[in-house]
């Protein structure tokens, strides 16, 4: 079929009596994501539909996971014949002169908006809403994710028309790739003057993974026809206490959950809902600290086996084996022993010498085999004795001091009390990470009296906690502390 420039979409893009010009398409993606396949399909589609097609890309190091742009221009062959000359097509997109932007990921859509490739009077934006997190987002010690909603809102505001859908989900559920879903959404958006069958023929001519690609294409097509996809926002439960009770029963026993409720009682009476919520959340997390018993318990459960089968997509005729990476040090061994024995072990050079060779290297435990499972099962079976362990005593002593401090602050400065409750987030992870977190936590708690002399103690504590979570080295915390002048010079 020859290119029909009177089709509604082409008209909108080109204007009624404007001179013939190329249709411009930018594919924004990350290297190795299949942007090349998508632009090959578009070129093939157009060439078979009576167009002159030109595409360019910048392979090279960007192909190693960096952000990159594929750029395509389409021009009706009939118009070139009429003019007796080939058109001069551009090799790079011009901001403000792009008809269609296809984004394989949400932040890349945001980047296209930022670069001005998406403009309100001409661009159709077709983007996947899934996230491939940036290295900054992934390496933040706490939560460094950007606001996905803001990216979607920006795309909607910047574009003439938009199609947002989770193309990664489509790809996964059809066993195909994101580019096929995007190609389908491109067809469904009717931003190009070609029929669905012409798009599908291009996939068939490509000859690789045709059936799966067509399935993803079809799903993408329907999403684009159906208009905007609602993006699900994970709703955080407000019933923190109920979750806490559930967690601690699961962790130890109902009596332990009862203990939790008793500790919360003073805060329930305080009439400060935010404080209650924060204390409830962080007390539950702290009381369910991850010791070897807990790790072994969680790793041996049937529900966990089922989850792994699901996550690795175990086929019907396949068998699954699971191996764990454990590296218990002498500290973890001592933690799990009765308090007195544990303390002796930590203090004894002889015991260190005996145990050192056993704990120097990590161990790989195969939980799906009998030996490995029974080992972890036995460790998990120490749960009834947990209350007597060294770790339990240490943690509960710290919890007591922390709760006392919150209670002391609550009447005079509830905001500070909330921040103290939240500071528990500093303590997480295992071994070195856990020790470093605990050290930072205790250091900041000791400075609370000094902070109270400042005008906004809660603000100070929040900033210092954020600094403590900003890196592994403690550099940000040191800098923030130096700036705050809280400590006596050391």
């Amino acid at each position, binding site marked *: 079929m020859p290119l029909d420039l009177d089709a509604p979409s082409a008209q909108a893009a080109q204007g009624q009596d404007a001179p013939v010009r190329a249709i411009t398409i930018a594919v924004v993606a990350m290297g190795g994501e299949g942007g090349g396949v998508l632009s090959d399909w578009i070129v093939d589609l157009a060439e078979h539909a009576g167009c002159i097609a030109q595409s360019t890309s*910048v392979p090279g190091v960007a192909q190693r996971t*960096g952000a990159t742009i594929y750029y395509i221009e389409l021009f009706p062959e009939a118009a070139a014949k009429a*003019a007796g000359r080939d058109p001069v*097509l551009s090799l790079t997109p011009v901001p403000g002169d792009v008809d269609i932007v296809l984004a394989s990921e949400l*932040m890349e859509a945001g980047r296209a908006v930022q670069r001005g490739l998406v403009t309100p009077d001409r661009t159709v934006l077709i983007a996947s809403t899934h996230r491939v997190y940036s290295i900054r*987002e992934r390496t933040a010690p*706490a*939560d460094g994710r950007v606001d996905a909603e803001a990216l979607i809102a920006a795309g909607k505001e910047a574009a003439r028309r938009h199609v947002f859908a989770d193309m990664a989900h489509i790809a996964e559920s059809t066993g195909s790739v994101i580019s096929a879903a995007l190609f389908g959404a491109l067809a469904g958006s009717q931003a190009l003057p070609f029929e669905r069958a012409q798009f599908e023929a291009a996939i068939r001519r490509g000859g690789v993974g045709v059936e799966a690609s067509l399935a993803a294409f079809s799903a993408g097509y329907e999403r684009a026809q159906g208009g905007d996809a609602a993006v699900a926002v994970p709703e955080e439960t407000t019933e923190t206490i109920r979750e806490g009770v559930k967690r601690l029963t699961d962790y130890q026993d109902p009596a332990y959950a009862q203990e939790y409720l008793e500790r919360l009682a003073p805060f329930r009476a305080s009439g400060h809902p935010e404080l209650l919520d924060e204390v409830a959340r962080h007390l539950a997390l702290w009381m369910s600290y991850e010791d070897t018993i807990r790790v072994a318990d969680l790793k041996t459960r049937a529900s*966990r086996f089922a989850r792994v089968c699901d996550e690795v997509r175990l086929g019907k005729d396949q068998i699954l084996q699971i191996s764990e990476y454990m590296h218990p040090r002498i500290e973890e061994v001592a933690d799990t022993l009765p308090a007195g024995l544990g303390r002796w072990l930590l203090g004894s050079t002889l015991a260190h010498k005996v145990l050192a060779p056993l704990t120097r290297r990590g161990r790989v435990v195969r939980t799906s085999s009998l030996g490995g*499972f029974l080992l972890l099962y036995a460790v998990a079976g120490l749960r009834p004795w947990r209350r007597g362990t060294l770790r339990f005593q240490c943690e509960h002593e710290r919890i007591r001091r922390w709760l006392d401090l919150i209670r002391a602050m609550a009447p005079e400065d509830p905001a500070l009390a909330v921040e103290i409750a939240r500071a528990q987030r500093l303590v997480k992870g295992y071994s070195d990470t856990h020790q470093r977190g605990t050290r930072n936590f205790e250091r900041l708690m000791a400075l609370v009296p000094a902070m109270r002399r400042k005008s906004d103690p809660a603000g100070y504590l929040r900033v210092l906690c954020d600094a403590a979570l900003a890196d592994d080295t403690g550099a940000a915390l040191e800098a923030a502390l130096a700036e705050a002048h809280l400590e006596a010079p050391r």
Partner: protein
Amino acid sequence: MAERSFAKEVQQLRLGAGQPFHGEGILAVTKALLQSGVSYVGGYQGAPISHLMDVLSDGKEILEELGVHFESSASEASAAAMLAASVNYPLRGAVAWKSTVGTNVASDALANLASGGVRGGALVVVGEDYGDGSSIMQERTHAFAMKSQIWLLDPRPNLESIVAAVEQGFELSEASNTPVMLELRIRACHVHGRFTAKDNRRPDFTLKDAMERPERDVSRIVLPPSSFLHEQEKVNTRWPAALRFIQERGLNEVFADDGQDVGLILQGGMYNTVIRALQLLGLSDAFGNSDIPLYVLNVTYPLVDAEINRFCAGKRAVLMIEEGQPEFIEQALHATLRRADLTTKVHGKDMLPMAGEYTAPVVLNGLRAFVERYMPDVAVQGGVSVPAPVAKEVAGSVDPRPPGFCTGCPERPIFTAMKLVERELGPHHVSCDIGCHLFSILPPFNIGNTTMGYGLGWAGASALNARDASKRTISVMGDGGFWHNGLTSGVGNAVFNRSDNVLVVVDNGYAAATGGQDIPSSLADNPNRATKNPIERAVRGVGVTWVRTLTRTYDVARVRDTLREALTTKEKGPKVIIAQSECMLNRQRRVKPLMKRMVKEGRRVVRERFGVDPDTCTGDHSCIRLSGCPSLSIAPNPDPLRRDPITQVQNSCVGCGLCGEVADAAVLCPSFYRAELISNPSWWDRLRHRVNGWVIGRLQARIDRRLERHAA
């Protein structure tokens, strides 16, 4: 075997006269070489030239049919020296590389070649890696052409023009006895377009003829007195011959010169961008029918004064559109017009930026300034539509996305180990090299001080060799850089100068960063090349005695311990660690189809991947900071009590095991598990699975009963 196969595309190299060719620019260049009757081709890979080398490798059969010799040269210097075959014999030869880096390496041979001149056509195809997506320093190949007097072609970036430039390049080379460079910008190399093919040509004079009937001419050799003669020849004979050829054959083009009193002079490679900018200003249609005259330099060196004077005569002003700096052409333009006493005003870098890529918006702004000044009556169109204000606001939500190590890359654990050693011994000076391993300088590793060029990693640390220093330096070199020149410039140099420092050679079996080409130490069976030459033998051969070869880089603890030993051992002298594991990108390409086939055939196949238990992960992401693997990502925390996202292993995981090893070596966290999926399990697998499953199931039921009892 290279990362990308062109087996299908190379069939287009067989197209005959009149048939339409559809494909990439670099493939069109290859076809043009065959249409020109080339006898030999060489080069060194590197974007955007890698595809040319890969196409030639995959097109071996066609090359053999035509009697064309093809070499994957050891370096750009080797490739340039190869052109010596065209000095004495009427043989056409072409070489290719990434520029300016490759031209830097080649310039010794190029200068010697250009001095004596050539008899057969000698063509150097350079991929100009400048602007968006470039991975190298921003310089111009133009300077090399000027210093050695090699002619420089910069054709309009469409396939017809590029193919014509190759064919004319050989003729120009032969007409002026001078080597010719064909400069292709990165996007022109990868542009998909079309042209009408011609028949391939077998060379009339063959390599065999040359070898069996050698000829020599002492006046072509660079040694006094000939070298002085060469300079005179360049100026008095070859230069005028080139000017004649360029004019007679109309290599440069003039468009739309209908008596207007202003004009544009531009490099051929800028043509499409200039037309698009004019089009957006309403000064041209889509076919390049411009309202302003254009003088298009498809040959940017030498410039043809007569053509310049003809174009400028009668014009009040011209705008020179010349990408890159210094502005060699603009300077020459001033001199030419001054000599001819023409008063045409020359604009260029005053209206356009001195540095940086000339994208369409950049050219648009320069053109607008020029038109507003000299054509005030022309109503210039707005050009482009304006982005919504949100374009600025969204900047805060858009992170930079630098390239990085691929999923499962075997180089990652080396730097993880370096990070772990840094924790123990403090930071060391690290001298980097060119290759994927240079990604170590970026987050999450942030390792590395300098990079001085391909293969020059160890040479870059050679000054830091003080006898009284309490720390040693670490240098990194890839296997690609090692064979390119690092064996002599780095290892030989360290032995001879009694270095006491450490070199880590990243031996992943390919020139990986350039697209996975084979090199002398590759383990692959390559029917056309001699592979499997171990790096350790080469290193010992030049005199290093402290050498450790690690055959599995994923064993982080082992790499860490070896590094620590190298940094702290009492033994004096250079220390070389050869860290081997196959490039994962290439491994996956090799292994994946194989596994699929085996599963289909009903054979037992075990696939490994890793996972993280969400209920034990506390979301501090230390594991990501020590790895940065793309498949190691984050996900919302399923735990209603926690807010920070958890770590998640995505299904793209290839099961290299680094995350587990790191968790282990760095004593991080017990959340990682390894899952082995056994397809077509054996009877023993099934039996064991059934027995284990029965016992484990009963015990798990007990756990569940406890949980239910409490939940009630």
